[in-house]
C-alpha cells in the first residue's frame, strides 16, 4: 500500500502543474497585468507611469511564459508563470497583490468555515442516513411514498431560499438567534446554530434520496434474504447488515469532501457574514488579485487530490477485500 500511496503522491505533481497552468491561462485571458494594476490603483487619475510602476514592483512586468530577453534557463525562469507558480509547490503563498500575507489569511479564515461545515456534515449525515433507513424500512408503504415526495420537494428548493427563508423565520420572526454575524470561541455557537440548521435541512432531500438508493440496492441482495431467513427482524437487518455493507459508497462521498470542508461555502458565508474561506476566492476574482486566486485554486486542487487518496485508503478499512497495489 505504501508504494501505491507514493505513486499517487507523485502523480499529484503533474496534476497540480496542469491545474496551475489552466488557472494561469484562464486568469490572464480575462485580465492583463495592466488591468490588474488599474483595478488596484483605482478609478481616478491613473497614468501609464503609475501602471508600469505597479507592475514592476509586483513582478507583473515580465512576459507571461517566455522571456526572449534572457539567456538559457532564464527564458523560462524570468516569466510571470514561473515566478508566481514555483513557490506554490513549496506551499509558500506569498502576499496578495495588496500586500497581505495569504497564508496568514487562509489560516485565519479556514476555522470559521470548518466551524460550519463540520457540524453540518456530521449532523446532516446522521439525519440523512436515519431518514433513508426509515424510508427503506417503510418501503412500498404510503409513508415511503410521501417521504420520497417530500424529499423531491426539498431538493427542488434553491439553496438561497433556505438561507433567506431561514433567516426570515428563525432570526427575524422568531428572534431566536442573530440573523448574521460571527464571534470567536464559545460565543460563536449562537451564530452557528442557524447556518448549520439550514445546511442540514437544505441537504436532507438529496442526501436522503441518495442513501435510500444505496440501501435499496443492498436490501435486494442474497445476504439480506439469508439474514431474514434466519429470522432476524427488519430493524436488525437494516442496522447490522445493510448499513455496514453500504459503507463503501457512503465513504466515497464523505471522505473525498473532508479536506474541502476548510474551503467553506460562498453563499452561506456571505449571507451569515461568516469570515470564512468561501468568499475569499470570489472576492479575489472581483478584485483581480491573481496571487490569491492561484493560491486558492492550488490549495483546492491539493485538498481534492488528498481527499481522493484518503477515500482509496478508507476502502481498505471498511472492506477487507480491497487491496491497494
Amino acid at each position, binding site marked *: 500500500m505504501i508504494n501505491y500511496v507514493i505513486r499517487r503522491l507523485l502523480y499529484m505533481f503533474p496534476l497540480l502543474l496542469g491545474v496551475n497552468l489552466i488557472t494561469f491561462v484562464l486568469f490572464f485571458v480575462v485580465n492583463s497585468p495592466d488591468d490588474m494594476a488599474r483595478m488596484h490603483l483605482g478609478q481616478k*487619475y491613473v*497614468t501609464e507611469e503609475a501602471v508600469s510602476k505597479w507592475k514592476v514592483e509586483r513582478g507583473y512586468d515580465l512576459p507571461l511564459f517566455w522571456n526572449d530577453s534572457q539567456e538559457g534557463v532564464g527564458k523560462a525562469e524570468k516569466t510571470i508563470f514561473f515566478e508566481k507558480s514555483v513557490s506554490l509547490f513549496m506551499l509558500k503563498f506569498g502576499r496578495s497583490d495588496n500586500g497581505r500575507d495569504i497564508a496568514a489569511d487562509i489560516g485565519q479564515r479556514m476555522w470559521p468555515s470548518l466551524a460550519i461545515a463540520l457540524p453540518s456534515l456530521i449532523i446532516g449525515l446522521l439525519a440523512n442516513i436515519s431518514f433513508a433507513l426509515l424510508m427503506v424500512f417503510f418501503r412500498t408503504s404510503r409513508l415511503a411514498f410521501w417521504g420520497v415526495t417530500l424529499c423531491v420537494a426539498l431538493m427542488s428548493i434553491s439553496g438561497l431560499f433556505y438561507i433567506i427563508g431561514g433567516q426570515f423565520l428563525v*432570526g427575524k420572526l422568531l428572534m431566536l438567534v442573530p440573523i448574521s454575524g460571527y464571534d470567536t470561541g464559545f460565543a460563536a455557537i449562537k451564530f452557528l446554530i442557524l447556518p448549520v440548521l439550514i445546511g442540514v435541512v437544505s441537504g436532507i432531500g438529496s442526501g436522503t434520496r441518495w442513501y435510500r438508493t444505496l440501501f435499496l440496492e443492498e436490501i435486494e441482495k442474497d445476504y439480506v434474504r439469508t439474514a431474514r431467513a434466519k429470522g432476524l427482524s427488519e430493524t436488525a437487518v437494516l442496522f447490522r447488515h445493510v448499513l455496514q455493507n453500504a459503507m463503501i459508497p457512503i465513504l466515497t462521498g464523505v471522505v473525498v469532501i473532508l479536506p474541502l470542508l476548510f474551503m467553506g461555502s460562498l453563499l452561506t458565508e456571505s449571507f451569515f457574514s461568516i469570515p470564512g474561506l468561501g468568499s475569499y476566492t470570489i*472576492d479575489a476574482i472581483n478584485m483581480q488579485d491573481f496571487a490569491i486566486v492561484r493560491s486558492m485554486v492550488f490549495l483546492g486542487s491539493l485538498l481534492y487530490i488528498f481527499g481522493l487518496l484518503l477515500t482509496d485508503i478508507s476502502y481498505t478499512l471498511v472492506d477487507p477485500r480491497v487491496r491497494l497495489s
Partner: protein
Amino acid sequence: MSSFGRYGAVQIAVIKRFFLVIWLGMTALLMACSGEPLNNPYSSEKQATSKVLYSSFSERPKHLDPARAYSSNEYAIIGQIYEPPLQYHYLNRPYLLEPLTVEKMPVVHYLDKKGLRLRQEASEEQIQWSEYVISVKQGIHFQPHPAFARSQEDNLLYHLLSDKQLEGVSQLSDLKEQGSRELTAEDFVYQIKRLVSPLTHSPIAELMKHHIEGLSDFEKTTEERYKKWQKNHKNGGFFDLRQADISGVQVIDRYHYRIRIRGKYPQFKYWLAMPFFAPMAWEADSFYAQEGLIEKNITLDWYPVGTGPYMLTENNPNRRMVLERNPLFHDAFYPRMGEEGDREKGLLDDAGKNLPFIDKVVYILEKESIPYWSKFLQGYYDASGVSSDSFDQAIEFSGEGELGLTQAMAEKGIHLQTAVTTSIYYMGFNMLDPVVGGLTERSRKLRQAIGIAVDFEEYISIFMNGRGIASQGILPPGIFGYESGSEGVNQYLYDWLIDRPKRKSLAIAKKLLAEAGYPNGRDRETGKPLVLYFDTTSSGPDDKARLNWYRKQFSKLGIQLVIRATDYNRFQSKVRNGNAQLFMWGWNADYPDPENFFFLLYGPNSKVSSGGENASNYQNSEFDRLFEQMRNAEDGEERLSQIRQLQEIIRRDSPWLFGFHPKAFSLYHDWYKNLKTNLMANNRLKYQRIDSELRNEKRQAWNHPVFWPILFIVLLFSLLAIPVWRVYKKRERETAL
C-alpha cells in the same frame, strides 16, 4: 424482547437525553444572556451604557494609508483617524472650508518670476507661483502608538525589533508600550514627500507633480536614491524620505510650512481638506518598514497613525474593524452656527460641546443587504441605506408624488434623509467617432436628437425608484454655478413649462435627426438604417431590462442600438483607446468646485491623446479657452457668467447626454443624533451622537423571542410518530408469504 424493542428502548432513552440536553442548553443560554435578546449579535458589549455606533462594511477597504486611499469606503475609516489641514464645516451650506489642524485658513500669495509678491488681483500671466504659508495648531498630539514608544534612555523602543521581540506578536496591540508626540510642520511636509515616494504609489502623484513646485524633481532624485539604497538593503528597512527636500515645500519652523504651487490653482485649498495632505509621523513609516511586522500583515496600510478623534484598535478585514476614541485628541467643538432650519431640526442642540460624542465604532463585515436590513429593523444597526429589495417596505409615494417613509417605519421612529449627490452619470459619445463624433452641425443635431429621445426621467422612475434628478447640464446641485429653474434648463432638449422643465417632443427629435441626414433613422444617402453601438459592462440577467430600455429609447427615432457587453477591463480599454462609440460613465466630485466637473470635457484631458479624464475626447477650442479662464477665477458674477457660457457650449455640442444626479437615501433610528448629509466631509463621525439608553430600550422591546412555533413543531413530529409507530408494529406482526 424483540430486537427492535431493544433498539426502541435505547432510542427512547437517547431521545429523552436529547431533550434534556436541549432544555439545559436553552436554560443556560437564557441565563447567560441575562435578559438580553437571544438574537443580539453583540452580547459581549455592555450595551446599556456604552456609546457604541454599529456600522458595517461589505468589502474590506483596500488601503488605509492616506497617501493611497481614494475611495469612499476607505475614507469612511481614515477620515476619522487622519486630520488634514482643513475640513468642511459640518452644517454650513454651501460647503465651506475651515481650519482643522491649522491655526487659520491659509492665505494664498501670488509671486512673479523673480519670486516677488504680487497683488491679489494680479493677472494670470503675471503669476508664476501661488504660495501658501500654513500655521500648524500647537498642542495637537498623535494617537498613542508603539511607533512613538521610547525607552528610559529616550530611544525608540520598537524600531529595531528582534526576532525574539517579534515572537508572539500577531497584531499591533501585542506591542504593549505606547507613546506619542506633538504634531509639527515637518509631519505635513513628510506626507507630501510620501505622495511621490517609490514605495507609496499615490493616485494623485501625477496630478500633484503637475501643481507642486519641485515635486517632480524630488521624485526623480528620490527614485535614484532608492535604487542605490535597495542595493545595500536587500532585506528591506526604512527608506528615509527626510534626507532630501522638495524645493516648493519647506518647513519654516516647528509650526509653519510653505507650499509653492505653479501658476494659479485656487482649487488647491480643497486638496488640503483631503487625507492625502494629512500629517504623517516619520516614526510611523520607520516602525512599519520592519520586515518582521510586514510579514505579520502589520503595516501602515492596515494600522493608521493619526491625530484624529478615533484610532483603529482592531482591524480584522475578515470580520470587523473597530475605531475607539483617541484619548489624546485635541480640543474640538460642535459648531455653534448652521444653516437655516438646523436649530429646529435639533442639529444645534449640542452646539459648543466637546467632540467626539461616540466612544467606539464597530464596523462589521456584512456582505448581503437582506440580513443588514433585517438587523437594522431589529435595532442592531443604527443607520441604513435603502436597497431596491427594501425600498417598498421603507418608502412610499404620497398622493402628490412626494417620497416619504411608510407608516411601519415611522412607527418605529425611523427617520429618512435624502440628498442629491455631487455626482453625475452620463452617456458619453466618443467625439472621435466618424458617426456620432465631431463638431459639425450634422453631428450636433444627431446627438441632440438622441438627447431628446433618451428619457432619463423615465429611467430614474423605472430603475431607480425615483431616486435621482435628470441633469440639465454638467453641474449637480450644491456646486457653484448650478442653477435651478428656467435659468438652468437645457434649452436644446427641454422646454420650460411654468414650474418645471419638459422634454421636447419626439417630433422635434425626428426633425433634428432628419436634418442630421437620417430621416426616420435611415441614412439619406445609402438608405441603410443607422446602427449605433453601446458599450457596457452590464451583461447579467438583471441588466437585461435596462439594456432593452436603452434599445427602446433609440428605436423611438428608428435608430438601431447594438449592445456590446463586455467585462470591465475590456470596456475600460475600449474607452482608453477610443474604440467605444456610446457608453455610460460617471463622476463623483473630489471637491465642491465647478472646475472638478468641467475639466471632464477639457480638450487637453482627452482620454485617447493624454490618458486624462475626458472620456468623450471632446475638444472645442472655445470651451477650452473659457474653461482656462473659469478654473482659476474666484466665485462671483464673472465666474457664474463663464459657467453659463460653458454650459451653453456643451449643451449645444452635446458630447454627453447629461444623464442624472443620483439621490442618496438614508434611514436612521431615533437614537442616532446630529445627522446631516454632508457629501464633502470625511470626518462626520465626531459630530454624531448615540442615545444608547433609548437604543437599549427599543432593542429590548423589539426583540422578544417567540418559542411557541418550536413547541408546535415538536408536537407535530410527536403526532406524526403515532402512525409511524402503528405501521411499524403492523409490519413486525406481518408473516412472510
